[in-house]
């Protein structure tokens, strides 16, 4: 104890009590922040997972060989209040049968692999063209020209009871293509 100090001797007793309450307050505060923070942060950063869903595009007879047509459907991956934005289009092309008589389809997402804009199919030219930055693709989805770093995204399809079905496509991006969900 310094000489002439105005501090009462009680000071030597209280710190332990005061220190204890400082720690206690800190601990309770941290606990409150944690139980509040975890669910809230998880809510904000959480990702909703949905099981893969199959959409029927139509009977096989609807798809003449080597003809690309756009089929539209309401995407089941969305919400009930999606309205018109739930509508999804895919380009379907029947490519005949393989040697073991299995039907071969090519189902392509409309989103350009460059920045996601909607490509259009030009039957007379046999090319998909993107209006945004001039990406061009061949009928099989392969990249032909323009800035896209890859071909169009392929949807996963199957034939069930004579119907062509496709796995409802999420919004495809370079690291999250549609093939991966198969």
């Amino acid at each position, binding site marked *: 104890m310094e000489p002439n100090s105005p501090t009462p001797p009680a000071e030597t007793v209280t710190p332990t009590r005061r220190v204890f309450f400082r720690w206690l307050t800190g601990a309770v505060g941290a606990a409150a922040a944690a139980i509040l923070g975890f669910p809230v942060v998880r809510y904000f950063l959480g990702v909703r997972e949905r099981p893969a869903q199959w959409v029927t595009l139509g009977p096989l007879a609807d798809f003449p060989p080597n003809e690309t047509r756009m089929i539209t459907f309401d995407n089941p991956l969305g919400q009930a209040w999606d309205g018109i934005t739930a509508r999804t289009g895919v380009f379907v092309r029947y490519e005949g049968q393989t040697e073991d008589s299995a039907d071969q389809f090519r189902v392509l997402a409309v989103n350009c692999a460059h920045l996601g*804009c909607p490509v259009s199919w030009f039957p007379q*030219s*046999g090319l998909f*063209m993107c209006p945004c930055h*001039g990406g061009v693709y061949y009928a099989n989805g392969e990249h032909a020209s323009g*800035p896209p770093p890859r071909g169009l995204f392929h949807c996963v399809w199957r034939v069930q009871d004579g119907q062509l079905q496709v796995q409802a496509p999420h*919004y495809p*991006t370079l690291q999250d293509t549609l093939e991966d969900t198969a």
Partner: protein
Amino acid sequence: MVRLLKALGNWLDARLGFRETLLPMMRHPIPKAVEGPMGWWYVFGSASLTFFIIQVVTGIGLALVYVPSADQAYQTLLYLDYDQPLGWFLRALHYYAGSGMVVMLLVHMTQVFLQGAYKYPRELTWVLGVLLLLCTMGMFFSGQILRWDPDAYWGLAVAGAMAGRVPVIGPWVVHLLLGGEIIGADSLSRFFTLHVFVIPAALMFFLAVHLWLVLRCGVSAPPVPGQSVDPATYDAEYHEELKTGVPFLGDALLKDILFSSLAVIAVVAIAAVLGPKGPTGPPDPTLGGANPRPEWPFLWLFALLSLSPPAAETFIILVFPMIVILVLFLVPFFSNRGERAPSRRPVAVLAVIVAYTALGALTYQGATAPWSPAMTAWSGDPIPENMVQQSAPVELQGALVFQYKNCRNCHALEGSWHAHDAQPVDRPGQQRHARRRQHAGLRQTDEPARDDGAGRFSGEPAALGAAGGRGERPFPIREALMPGMSP
């Protein structure tokens, strides 16, 4: 009555204490020159603030009617445009005052930069100003999304595709941005929340700090060539200058009020004449012929993404904006002393000229360039027989590739096939073509490409006959053909 009001005022001030705290602050002296003609340079910040207040008021008005639900947003916009009295005007005003705010911010920022007003001790004021610019750009982008039309939908798609390029966590970022697996209701709710709650809250906070700093650090005196800023002596010099100063809340504000009034009149007139912007159509992603364009503050980036080499693209999307923002933040730390007058700072002037020239040129390109050729003259017709008569077998194969790859869609044919000069290239045509990313962007005419007059294509047909021209193995035509496109 007057006595009663005075009593009320006294009662309030006894508790609030504004007369002792706020009033002296508002009446604090600013350099006398600001009251002179040079004061006209100081009006752009307050004009931005005026536009921001209009945005708040019109935004609240629009939120009274607008429903941020993917299945109803479009109808409520149409209702605002056609049925709600003056709804069209509020929508127009909200758009053009927002545009005006961006313009005023840029002019304000340019003025502060050119006149060195960001130098000591106002570095932090500049940093807050950059944050305000970022918030405003965020408001512009999220606001465009709320206009739930094809441009909004595909704007989200482009934003998602950009986010998807983030290494490793790209897919998660996309999901976070869109709020779900597809672009739809969750995405709209998300951007509504950003536009109405998150960004405005951040913007108002930054604005409060920015204005506090303006009061605290004082308004900079108009620059005088030869009078340079030295942090060691600046405070004393500024203090000396203020001894002849004029009050902040006084006649110096007249110019601001007059300019803001004129700006408001201009924006109201533009809104009334041009009317509301969009919505251009229902946000139906299956509608063909969509030609999405971003709002004008982002057109330069849109153009840059088409003109840049593909190898640099991910860099331009992810890193380049960060560099620009970082450089903007660091401006006052690179040079917080020295000359302030633009006549003594040629590099600063040059930087402004270069930046605006680049932005202007890119914006013009983004607004006008049809990156995709207008498909009114495509041609899937076979190559005329007389062109391939007397062609060598390898040249015939090249003609087949030309046919099946639909090259005639963009490239014209003239003369005879074998007359085309085969330029040696080291790869099959298909790959070379694919490497040339800007290919489609080169042709922007409505008609097929013309022969260049020398019996050659103006495009790049040289690759087609290349294998033969060099006497290498014949062009691998079977591989080049598309599956499902049998001859």
